[in-house]
Each structure stands twice: as structure tokens, then as C-alpha cells.
């Protein structure tokens, strides 16, 4: 019953007026930056860090955490309404969410995203509280070989995930991996494919690619059509979920939460893998799988839950080991250190107010986000009724500002334009941008872990099958690949026979 006592203690801390206020401020800011394309939590938190210096450490970290998961909530709004993903995890949300919006079910998509995230947040908060230290040992048991196999599995998922031609999706994954090679080589520090442009030495910007390939390309496509048709849907449709939609979404939310909670603990690609993995899982196992590609609610409910669960459990390595899992967490470490607190295993005993207060505030924050977001859905959806000729210049301006603010560099804006044009060409050629993006995200990580595993094993390839985690991942990947190839080969055969006949 220690857990309950601790959680009650945390609630006491989180529910103090000051902490509650800053949690609310954090959630509001987070939602706002999530909705504004391109402006991410990293830039915002680094800007707001000085403000937190005057506050007690617990209050500061509660507000920063609020910004972080608030941004996850807000990010799905633009992904669903405008096909504009600002983060890796919301790329998946565009796939079914935007299609739902086009069918007039934007309200339902936003509602399930909010409800699913809340459920996932609740479950993973309890998980962080109950088994944080235990889960840390899971993260520690992942070696480079295991990471490589996990990423490889992710890439196979990306190819399976694509709609239409397998060949085209494999090609797009390859293009993504190739783009991911640009930049400084982690092992030797050498520059690869940068053509002497200093801005490319840290690689091509993810946000530029995501915005260009999805958002900008979509705008160009919409402008091709006469305005009457380019407005998404004159009838907004009911905001509430139908009974049928609710029934279909529940199992997806639960599956997504479970997957996200586990993958979130892994540093690096955890959260991204979680939402992609959940999408893939829903496509294969959910009852609505035949609707995927036309706006299936499972494709929103699962990944949204998964990414929220992952963003909560990604606090575990930070809180228990003092090791940040991503850039936002690194900023949190910075904020704590400036406050004179060293995050790490001792934090639980040395700073119980902070540790349990933060955990309790995660749940309070999730509740707040639900309260903030649900009534706003009606407002967001009304946005769709704004005539497109007013809408698209505003989107473009916000994208430009957002991308510029990443590095305060115009180069990123040019990059976005280039990928916008490329994305337009791709959609004309019926090439899916999603596999390219996952290739871009996973490719470089996979290379890094592969080469590290090889360095550590002195070039012995057997490490990949000798380690049980790695071997399991590879086996699942192999099965997935076989499952994907077999029907498509037989389908091609059918097509060939028909053509021949």
C-alpha cells in the first residue's frame, strides 16, 4: 500500500494551488504549440526555461511536463484537420485521421484522439508509479544488437504499412533511409552527402520533410481542384462518436496503450516506433481493418493512445536513471540541474515531493487536457469551414514561422519548400510519404546500432541471433515480411494471368 500512500502524497503536491496553476499554464502552452505547425516542445521549453528559475523545482518541472504532453495532444489536431504532422508520432495520425476529416468525421477523430490519449495517460501514469524502477531494467537490457533488430522490425512494418504497391513502398523506405544518411557520420565524424552545405551537417530536418511531404504537398494538391471541392466538407458532422465508432475504438485504445507503454521506455525511437507499431497492429488485427486507407477510427485511436502512453513512460529512464530518453527529457535534466537537483535513482528518496508530485501531476495534466480539448473540438472543426483561399496562406505562414524557429535559420524554410514540391510529385506518382518518413527516422538509428554492435562484437554477425531479444525481433520481422510478400506475390500472379488471358 506504499504506492497508494505515495500517490496520495503526490496528489497533495500536485493539487496545491500554485502547482495546479502552472500545470494548467503548461498544458495550455503545450496545446497551443502542438496546434501551431512546426513549433515543437523543444524550442518552447528552451525558451521558457528561464521563467521557471524563479519557481520551486517541482512547480517548474510540472509546467515543463505539461508543455510536453500538451504538445502531443495539440499535435494531433493539425494532423487530423490539415494533414500537417509536426512530430514523428503524428505522422501516423494523418493517415486515417485526415481521411476521417475528409469524410466529415473530424469531430469524431479529434474526440477519440483526446479520449484515447487520456486513457493511455492514466494507465501509463499508474505504470510509471508502480513499476518505474522495474521497467528501467528492461531498458537497460537492450543492447545495440537488440536495438538494431527492433529498428529493422520497424522498417519492415513501414513497408507493410504502406497502401498499394509493395514495390513502391519499399522504394520509398529506401529513399527515406538514403535521406537519413545525410549529415555527420556518428562513428567517424565525417560528413556524408552534405555537398559542403554546413546546414546539412546535422542531417536533413525531420520537421521540414514531414511538413513538406504532408502539409505543403496537400495544399498544392487542394489548389489544383476547384475551390468548391477543396473545402473539406461543408457538413461538419456530429462531434460525438457514434456507438459503433466507440465500440470499434475501445480495443484499439487498449492495444495502443500497452504497446506504447512498453516502447516508450526505450530511449531514442521509442515514441515514434510506438505509434507506427500500433498503426500496423490495428491494420492487421482490428475488426475495421478493411476500412484502413479510407478513414478507419482504429487507425486514429490506437496510435494516438500509443504515443501518449510512450510519452509518459519515457520519463522512466529520466526519473530512475537520470538519463534523458530524448531532447525534451534532456532539457528537463537541464532544468532540474539548474535548480540544484540531480535526477537519478536517489531522486525518489531525496526528492519525494518532486518525484511523486510530478507523477500525480501527469495524471492531473491529462485530465486538464481532456477538459481543455473536448470543448475546443467544436471550434477546431469550425476552422474547416473557413474558405480555403483564406486558409492555405495562413497555414503556409505558420509553417514557415514554425520551421524557421527550429534553428532560427532560413535554410530550413527552403528545405520545406523543396520537400513540398517533392511530396506533390510523389502523390502524383502515387508514392506514399509515410514509409519514406519512417525510413528517414529509423534508418540512421539502425545504422548507428548496427555499427556499434559490430564494433563491440569485433565484427561477429552472430550477436544478432545469439541475443534472445534480438533473435525474437528478427523472427517477428521475418514472419511479417513473409505474411506481406505471400499475398502480394499471389495477387500479382493473378493479375498477370488476367492480363495474359
Amino acid at each position, binding site marked *: 500500500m506504499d504506492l497508494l500512500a505515495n500517490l496520495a502524497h503526490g496528489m497533495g503536491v500536485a493539487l496545491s494551488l500554485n502547482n495546479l496553476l502552472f500545470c494548467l499554464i503548461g498544458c495550455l502552452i503545450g496545446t497551443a504549440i502542438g496546434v501551431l505547425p512546426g513549433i515543437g516542445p*523543444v*524550442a518552447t*521549453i*528552451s525558451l521558457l*526555461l*528561464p521563467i521557471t*528559475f524563479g519557481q520551486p523545482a517541482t512547480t517548474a518541472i510540472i509546467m515543463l511536463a505539461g508543455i510536453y504532453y500538451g504538445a502531443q495532444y495539440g499535435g494531433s489536431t493539425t494532423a487530423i484537420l490539415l494533414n500537417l504532422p509536426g512530430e514523428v508520432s503524428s505522422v501516423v495520425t494523418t493517415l486515417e485521421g485526415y481521411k476521417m476529416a475528409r469524410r466529415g468525421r473530424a469531430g469524431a477523430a479529434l474526440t477519440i484522439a483526446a479520449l484515447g490519449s487520456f486513457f493511455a495517460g492514466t494507465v501509463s501514469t499508474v505504470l510509471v508509479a508502480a513499476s518505474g524502477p522495474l521497467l528501467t531494467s528492461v*531498458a*537497460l*537490457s*537492450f*543492447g*545495440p544488437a537488440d536495438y538494431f533488430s527492433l529498428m529493422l522490425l520497424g522498417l519492415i512494418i513501414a513497408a507493410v504499412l504502406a497502401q498499394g504497391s509493395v514495390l513502391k513502398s519499399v522504394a520509398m523506405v529506401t529513399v527515406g533511409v538514403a535521406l537519413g544518411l545525410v549529415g*555527420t*557520420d*556518428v*562513428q*567517424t*565524424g*565525417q*560528413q556524408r552527402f552534405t555537398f*559542403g*552545405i*554546413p*546546414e546539412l*551537417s*546535422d542531417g536533413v530536418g525531420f520537421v521540414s520533410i514531414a511538413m513538406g511531404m504532408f502539409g505543403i504537398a496537400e495544399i498544392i494538391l487542394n489548389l489544383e481542384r476547384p475551390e468548391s471541392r477543396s473545402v473539406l466538407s461543408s457538413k461538419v458532422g456530429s462531434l460525438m462518436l457514434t456507438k459503433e465508432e466507440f465500440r470499434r475504438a475501445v480495443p484499439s485504445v487498449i492495444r495502443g496503450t500497452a504497446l506504447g507503454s512498453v516502447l516508450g521506455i526505450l*530511449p*531514442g525511437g521509442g515514441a515514434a516506433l510506438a505509434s507506427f507499431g500500433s498503426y500496423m497492429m490495428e491494420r492487421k488485427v482490428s475488426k475495421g481493418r478493411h476500412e484502413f486507407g479510407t478513414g478507419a477510427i482504429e487507425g486514429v485511436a490506437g496510435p494516438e493512445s500509443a504515443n501518449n502512453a510512450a510519452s509518459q513512460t519515457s520519463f522512466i*529512464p529520466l526519473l530512475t*536513471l*537520470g*538519463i*534523458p530518453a530524448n*531532447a525534451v527529457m*534532456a*532539457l528537463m*535534466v*537541464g532544468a532540474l*540541474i*539548474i535548480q*540544484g537537483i*540531480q*535526477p*537519478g*535513482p*536517489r531522486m525518489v528518496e531525496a526528492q519525494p515531493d518532486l518525484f511523486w508530485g510530478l507523477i500525480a501531476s501527469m495524471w492531473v495534466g491529462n485530465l486538464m487536457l481532456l477538459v481543455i480539448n473536448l470543448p475546443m473540438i467544436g471550434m477546431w472543426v469550425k476552422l474547416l469551414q473557413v474558405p480555403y483561399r483564406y486558409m492555405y496562406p495562413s497555414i503556409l505562414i505558420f509553417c514557415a514561422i514554425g520551421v524557421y524557429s527550429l*534553428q*532560427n*535559420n532560413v535554410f530550413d524554410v*527552403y528545405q520545406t519548400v523543396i520537400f513540398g514540391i517533392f511530396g506533390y510529385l510523389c502523390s502524383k506518382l502515387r508514392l506514399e510519404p509515410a514509409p519514406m518518413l519512417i525510413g528517414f527516422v529509423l534508418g540512421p538509428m539502425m545504422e*548507428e546500432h548496427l555499427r*556499434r554492435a559490430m*564494433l*563491440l562484437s*569485433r565484427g561477429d554477425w552472430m550477436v544478432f541471433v545469439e541475443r534472445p531479444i534480438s533473435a525474437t525481433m528478427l523472427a517477428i520481422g521475418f514472419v511479417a515480411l513473409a505474411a506481406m510478400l505471400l499475398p502480394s506475390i499471389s495477387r500479382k500472379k493473378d493479375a498477370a494471368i488476367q492480363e495474359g488471358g
Partner: protein
Amino acid sequence: MSWTLRRRALLAGLPLAAIAERPALAQGGAWPSQPIRLVVPFAPGGTTDLVARLVAAGLQERLGVSVVVENRAGAGATVGSEMVARAAPDGYTLVMSNIASHGISPSVYRGRIRYDAVTDFAHIALVVSNPTVWVANPRSGIRTLGDAAAKARSAGGLDVATSGAGSSNHLMVVRMGQLIGTELNHIPFRGAGPAMQAVIAGQVPMMSDSLPSAANHIRQGSVIAVAMASAERHPSFPEVPTFREQGFDLASDSWFGLSAPAGTPAAVVERLNRETRAFLSAPEIRARLAELGGTPGDLSAEGYGEFVRREVALWAPLVQASGATPD
């Protein structure tokens, strides 16, 4: 690419314009009258960023104008540094100069960066220096550098993790290999965090890290401090022997300082040096830095300039030996 060329041409014209403006500034003498930009050539969240934010908060209080931290990461901290080298030398643009941007990268990116770490800057003050510490996994059996050397000479060799290729830690690994007489198996990571995690998990037995990022893990006992790469033992970790005590002639601190574009009025540089040193001597700042394992700097502006010159010369041969060049 025409825009890049145009931009370069524009930038080339900037120093002239700035020189023309300078007398006006000297007459006014009202520096600082507007917000000051402090460019951090790394992404937010790292040690440089952290130190910069501490300094920014301190200077803001003492100068009475806001000091805004701006992150301009990229290319071994050279992108942000180059921007400052070409900014107007009016005292309103500063850079958090550091061992990467002004010590190692000039050699790593030789011929590719368009600034000179020594002559294109008015170096202001050394803010903090952090010793490098070598840590080992408690189960690795490595307790001393002698153990490490023995393991390195054995058939399996010794894996040493670092925060990345071309970092000062990487070069330390190269240098240590030279001293032991056999190459160490350098395992670079993306940042100190993941590298430390691999050492704690036992995937890599050893790591070369800066003391602030390792200090807490040493205190918790999740890693063992094997040797401190500084001239003397560190006051916060008096039980950890230095490299020299263990028979290896290696001492290297990583450092952070404040620099402005060359041509910044001497009065401004002096004022900034004075304020920075005053801020750094405040007991609570000293305590905060000591807890992190850092030593606050106390050099004159000329002293820091000389320090940077020595560092550039020191690292050049090691960069050559490490093979860490971008081409």
C-alpha cells in the same frame, strides 16, 4: 545555390559596415542599451546550454538588460560560432565558446569553416572548466588505469564509450591508446546520456566523460571513477586519483567561455569580463558548479584569448592522429 553566394557576399560586407558604426557607439557609451544575444552553438539541453543559461541569468541581473540564449546547433558547434564571428562587433552578440567550437573543431573542420577561432573573436572570459573522468562499470573488473591497460593489451581489447566522434573525449581515447601502446576500441554514441546508459548496463566496460555529466552516476555507485584527467585531484572527488598519479601523462579539461566578434570595443569586453568573474565568484554559483564537478574560470580577457590559442595548438596533432576529419 545562388542565395548562399549572395548571403556570403552580404556577410563579407558586414564587418566594414560595423567598423563604420563603431565611433558612434564609442561616443554614446551607453552599452548595454538593448537586449544581448548569447548564441549557444549546441542544441538545448546539453552542458553548454546549461552553463549558458546560468551565465545569461547572472549577466542579465548585473547588466540590467535581458540576455537571450539562442541555440544555433550544427557541424561541431561551428555553425553558431561562425554566425557570431560575422555578427556586428557591438557587444550585443556573444557566443558560448567552448572546447569544441574553439578548440577541436578548427582542426576537425579545417578548410571548411570560415572563421578563425583565435583572430576572429574578442575572447571575453573563461566561464567554467570541467575535468574529464574515466569511469568503468562496477562489474567490469577495472579499478585502475593499470587494469584498463592490461585489458587493452589482452586479446579482447578494451572498448571505451564516448559522447561522439571528434569530441574531446574521442581524442582522449586516441591519446590514451598512444600512451598504452595499443589502440583502444572507440565506441562513439550520440551524446553522453546514451553512452553512460551503455556503461551502466555493462555493454561497454569504460567511458571517457566530462565530470558534470558523470558526477551523479559516480556518487550513486552505478559506475566507478577510475581516473581524473586533470592536473590535481578534484576537491569534490578527492578519492579519485589522476592519470598522472597512475603513470599516464594525460590532463585535459573541457571548458566553456564567453566570446564576442573581433573588433568589439575593449571597454565592452572589459565590462563583460568583470561582470562574468564577479558573477562566478558568488558563493551559491561556486557551490552549484562545484556540485556539478566544474571549476569556475577566473581569467582576464587576454588570459582567455591566450588560453584559446593554446587549446587550438594542443588539439591539432591529436585530431590528425584520430582521423576525425570531415573529408
